[in-house]
């Protein structure tokens, strides 16, 4: 169905989808859905909620596709929608007291029963610690961190996503890094990286 669309630019696919072309929309979706899922997962940190979050992102995207200007970057717009939706979802679920606890690390993050030797147990514990560390930092810090180091976005782009200044983005990233380090290594930070 989508083989013919593989070489087509995002802009052309968006234009076709705006005209109601389902195949073009499907191609656009399959091209970007994994990235959207990664962003949502790393911000929401809850495997049971992430599917709903991804669906909410795509609902917003398709509902507002008619207003999207094709000369702009679709990927950048999508990142923005994904990050903001994930932040909203996370806050909503936190409010409902449904955030992932320490003992609720998703099953897929843990190794299979038969391969649980000492090494894989260590890995599982490490993943659990990373999960906890990411959960400890604020959602804005996590979003800035994820978009900066996983999605290669510049501080300017992240500032647009979060609706704040570039300096604030740097502060979020710095504090996020410091908190992750403190949580993961238990090491006190030295003078230069203290503030």
């Amino acid at each position, binding site marked *: 169905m989508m083989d013919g669309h593989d070489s087509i630019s995002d802009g052309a696919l968006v234009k076709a989808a705006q005209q*109601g072309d*389902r195949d073009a*929309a*499907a191609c656009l*979706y*399959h091209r970007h*859905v*994994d990235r959207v*899922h*990664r962003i949502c*997962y*790393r911000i929401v940190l809850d*495997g049971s909620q992430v*599917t709903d979050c*991804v*669906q909410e992102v*795509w*609902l917003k*995207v*398709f*509902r507002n596709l008619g207003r999207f200007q094709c000369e702009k970057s679709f990927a950048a717009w999508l990142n923005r929608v994904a990050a903001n939706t994930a932040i909203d979802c996370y806050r909503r679920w936190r409010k409902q007291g449904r955030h992932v606890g320490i003992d609720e690390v*998703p099953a*897929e*993050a843990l190794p299979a029963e038969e391969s649980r030797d000492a090494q894989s147990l260590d*890995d599982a514990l*490490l*993943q659990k610690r*990373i*999960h906890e*560390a*990411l959960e400890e930092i604020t959602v804005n810090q996590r979003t800035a961190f994820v978009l*900066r*180091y*996983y999605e*290669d976005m510049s501080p300017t782009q992240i500032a647009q996503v979060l609706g704040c200044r570039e300096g604030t983005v*740097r502060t979020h*990233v*710095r504090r996020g*890094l410091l908190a*992750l*380090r403190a949580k*993961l*290594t238990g*090491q006190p930070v*030295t*003078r*230069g*990286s*203290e*503030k």
Partner: protein
Amino acid sequence: MKHARFSLEEFKALFPDPFGSQEEMLKEYEAFRAILEQVDQLPVPELSVRERAEIFRRSWPEPAQRRARVWTWLAFLRRPAVTFAAGLVLGCALMFIGMRPQTETPEPIAPEQAFTVQHAGHVKTYEGKILQALYPQIENPRVTVEKKQEASKPRRVLQGTLDKGQVYVLWNL
């Protein structure tokens, strides 16, 4: 994730305060790089094929859903309060149009069609649409301007008919 973006320059920009020594700074930089690499180890579970298909199916508005949306709008417009408000607005608009002062202007007549002049000695006869507009009750109106001599006072006479040519009109202007 390759942390090409977490360069030493970026580290220095994030932590601009001075370190004890260059070695200490590099040690700190490496420590943060190690943290990023550690965070990479958190796997992101992939969406299954079924989940992907389901998300798209629920997100993409099918024609039936679009039609349903139109019906939703129609249902909204058919609510009594909305209908009343729309009627009020429409009524006001119609009243505004109706109450506007009428400023009808007669259709302009092209200069070449306005009138013709015929010369016969000292008599000039004017005919045309402009005279019909000036004397709409008279059929085929024409005005003759006659001078006995060049210097004498002109005599202007309006000529025409009434009742489909049954009455001949002659009127000194």
